[in-house]
């Protein structure tokens, strides 16, 4: 089924910011998403808005994006209800809708209530023009391959719903394989892409450039790490990475930790944090520190840090005070004196015994 209408959230999706928290002029349009709107609009695909903002926010978005939206639903109700209303208004089936929202809760709600809707994060939406769901009947091999990853996600979600056991059991049964490896210069473009696109799992205040990654990969005392993910449903390639500075004072510092949100719920971030703690402990390091800004977007990453035993209240290696400003990274520290965390058998990583079952 080809998508006939894309339903967009406003805050941190169509716009680079939150409407109700912005200054008088209102947030700017997200430049990547603005390009996607224009590209899909050129193919005859409609655009609509579903937002919990007041209607003025939708008018602002339409004005700064310079386009009309075919339907607008603003209100406190469920987004799945808003999508159903939009489909009725436009006279199309719910299965001809796509939904883009930066909020994982909203995506989960629509996914559960309307499984036939194509549900995307803004990061996914940036790639959507290459997928056949958003393309005219003529489909290239290239877009077919990219779309495979979306179709695979649907199949994985259905399998997980049908699976009786818990999350860990499903990851095992799905043949999940996480490969952690030192980055090579050829990885720099993908790492930069992740640094620029990830929001929910990104510790940094600034985007690292491709040249920045190239020089860190070459630098002594700094390790750049890639994380690849595949399972029996798809091979997602590099979905995450981090930068590790091996300091001389008995601490390792991680100034950048990032992961694509499409890997959320698949054990990747937990595996990376566990491996970092194990590798640091093996090297005789006493404290592992992740520098992480605390903004409303990266709550999922901060939850993962808390779950892996990192705390911004814990003492730092050099006893320095925590930065106070919201834009300044806080030091999330984890002591390494206790027993190292477990690493699932499906993780392959430097310094870990090979446990590949294949």
């Amino acid at each position, binding site marked *: 089924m080809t998508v006939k209408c894309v339903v967009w959230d406003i805050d941190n999706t169509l716009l680079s910011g939150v409407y109700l928290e912005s200054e008088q002029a209102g947030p700017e349009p997200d430049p990547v998403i603005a390009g996607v709107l224009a590209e899909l609009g050129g193919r005859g695909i409609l655009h609509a808005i579903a937002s919990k903002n007041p209607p003025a926010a939708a008018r602002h978005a339409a004005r700064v994006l310079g386009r009309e939206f075919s339907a607008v639903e603003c209100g*406190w109700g469920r987004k799945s209800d808003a999508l159903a209303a939009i489909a009725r208004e436009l006279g199309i089936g719910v299965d001809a809708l796509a939904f883009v929202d930066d909020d*994982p*809760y909203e995506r989960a709600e629509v996914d559960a209530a309307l499984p036939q809707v194509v549900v995307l994060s803004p990061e996914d939406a940036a790639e959507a023009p290459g997928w056949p769901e958003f393309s005219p009947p003529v489909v290239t091999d290239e877009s077919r391959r990219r779309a495979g990853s979306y179709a695979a996600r649907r199949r994985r979600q259905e399998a997980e719903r049908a699976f009786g056991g818990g999350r860990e059991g499903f990851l095992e049964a799905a043949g999940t394989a996480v490969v952690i490896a030192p980055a090579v210069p050829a990885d720099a473009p993908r790492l930069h892409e992740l640094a620029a696109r990830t929001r929910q799992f990104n510790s940094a205040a600034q985007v690292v450039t491709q040249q920045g990654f190239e020089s860190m990969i070459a630098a002594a005392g700094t390790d750049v790490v890639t994380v690849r993910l595949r399972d029996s449903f798809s091979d997602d390639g590099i979905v995450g990475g981090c930068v590790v500075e091996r300091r001389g004072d008995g601490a390792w510092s991680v100034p950048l930790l990032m992961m694509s949100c499409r890997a959320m719920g698949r054990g990747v971030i937990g595996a990376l944090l566990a491996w970092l703690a194990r590798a640091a402990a093996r090297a005789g390091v006493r404290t592992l520190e992740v520098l992480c800004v605390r903004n409303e977007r990266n709550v999922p990453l901060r939850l993962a840090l808390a779950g892996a035993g990192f705390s911004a209240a814990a003492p730092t290696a050099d006893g320095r005070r925590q930065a106070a400003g919201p834009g300044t990274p806080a030091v999330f520290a984890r002591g390494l004196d206790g027993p190292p965390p477990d690493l699932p058998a499906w993780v392959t990583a430097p310094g870990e015994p090979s446990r590949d079952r294949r």
Partner: protein
Amino acid sequence: MSGAGGRGSGAGPAAPRDGGPGAARGTGPAAVADEIRRILADATRRAKMLRIPAATPLFGDAVGLDSLTGTLLLREIELRFGVDVAAEDVNLDSLATLGTLAAFVADRLG
């Protein structure tokens, strides 16, 4: 993103947002803890969450909160109580146990 209310400002309202869906039933720590148990049971699809003691660590094996279930939990707390935990407790220290989280939320309900 819902966008409404003081998300991320660190100075969210102390009282529940009126007019929001699913207004919370009780505001004492015990009532809040019961509501959180219900949220956890839904988010993890495990009914035994309804019976966990207040001292249960949320990130430990019993609950196994991760970034996905944690995000759902914080959003439901915001919807039901009007408390944006991630904005008011930027280090998320209140998520140590069910009891500390319930106390943190109840404290902000006055």
